């Protein structure tokens, strides 16, 4: 199995203007802060960011927002980031809200090579507006489209050089789904282990889904426990 270790500069350099980028994480756990930092440094513009949330003001994807790199957010909520809410209200970014589980499922559908799925979730809400409906066996359903991306940025607890991954605790969240749904999957790994260092039964994301593995040299403060 080939070695997918890549420098962070080289991996992130693949992301150009207008790219659609999935970013793992739910709050702090699972957010790939170091990859995001490099994305800010390399500064591609007009990005679409797909993530559960917009992190908190001054953290993670908020750096992309502050740097004016984001044109569109697809999220389940931005309630912890007043800055993102402000940008939305001022019309400076476009925000598409999805119910959280539907966001997860749309990402997974892309990863599974499906075009979409039928659900009754949110049918009688504002979020159903403009979505196609179909009837199946006498019931009406919304059609939710698969949501794919050019890139996924993923934080792993451990990775081997082939890209087999594990996630820690609640840092798993959207990452295994996004790692299936993007054309190019870039992983930052807290711990690099040798091939065979992850037991076959313990792998959370199998290597064939992963394109680039970047070893984290250190964890910045952003990864730490937040005092509230």
């Amino acid at each position, binding site marked *: 199995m080939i070695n997918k270790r890549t420098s962070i500069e080289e991996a992130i350099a693949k992301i150009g203007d207008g790219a659609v980028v999935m970013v793992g994480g739910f*709050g*702090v756990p*699972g957010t790939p802060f170091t990859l995001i930092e490099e994305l800010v440094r390399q500064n591609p513009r007009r990005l679409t960011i797909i993530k559960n949330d917009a992190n908190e003001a001054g953290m993670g994807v908020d750096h992309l927002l502050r740097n004016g790199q984001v044109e569109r957010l697809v999220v389940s909520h931005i309630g*912890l980031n007043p800055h993102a809410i402000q940008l939305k209200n001022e019309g400076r970014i476009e925000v598409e809200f999805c119910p*959280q589980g539907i*966001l997860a499922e749309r990402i997974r559908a892309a990863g599974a090579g499906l075009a979409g799925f039928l659900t009754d979730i949110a049918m009688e809400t504002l979020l159903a507006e403009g979505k196609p409906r179909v009837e199946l066996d006498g019931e009406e359903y919304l059609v939710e489209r698969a949501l794919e991306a050019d890139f996924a940025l993923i934080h792993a607890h451990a990775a081997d050089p082939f890209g087999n991954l594990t996630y820690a605790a*609640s840092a798993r969240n959207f990452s295994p*789904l996004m790692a299936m749904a993007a054309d190019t999957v870039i992983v930052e790994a807290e711990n690099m282990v040798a091939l065979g260092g992850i037991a076959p039964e313990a792998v959370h994301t199998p290597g064939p889904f992963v394109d680039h593995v970047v070893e984290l040299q250190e964890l910045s403060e952003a990864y730490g426990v937040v005092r509230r």
Partner: protein
Amino acid sequence: MLSGADERMVRRAAREVRAGMTVNLGIGYPTLVVDYLEPGLPVCMHSENGISGQGPALPFEQADRNLIDAGGAYVSTLPGTAFFDSAVSFALVRGGRLDLSMLGALQVAANGDLANWIIPGKYTPGVGGGIELAQKACRVVVLCTHLDKRGQSKIVAQCDLPLTAPACVDRVYTDMAVIDVTDTGMVLREIAAGLSVDEVIAATAAPLLIDENELATF
């Protein structure tokens, strides 16, 4: 600190949780329910960011940076905790394995309609997992203050705020009352100690069915 009335509401709502249930506690009052459960009650707490069997919240000093609940609180594991991804987490909810969902509310209508995620033009944070938790849990109960900050009833004949999910609420716990949503309308089951039925009726913008003989106090 909870007021006495709020504390009674949360304590009363905690009796919803029974042995063997898988339960999701929403942000706000529902989160507090965990502190009022009978010690040792064998329940499974679900957090939609990917945890079943979630353990108690932890202070800063003991926190694991990778382990939060869906509200962002640092939590712990128990023997029997499992972690999974967000798709599995909501499969559990939509697939019918969540026995009880406790949610906050902006408005609850007489038919069980719930509005709790958006005030157009004012409060637009997005819905998170709220729609699925409201629409698909086997039982949905709401914990909220009976009146909003401007003194308007949150219990209404019809929601004027955009819905989270239609006809989803089974029961409402407030600081003033316990109200069931039934096929024939809202039924007042219990009132807070020290209140009269008339005071509850006056504070409620939905019709209430009342059988004074059955009415309990909490």
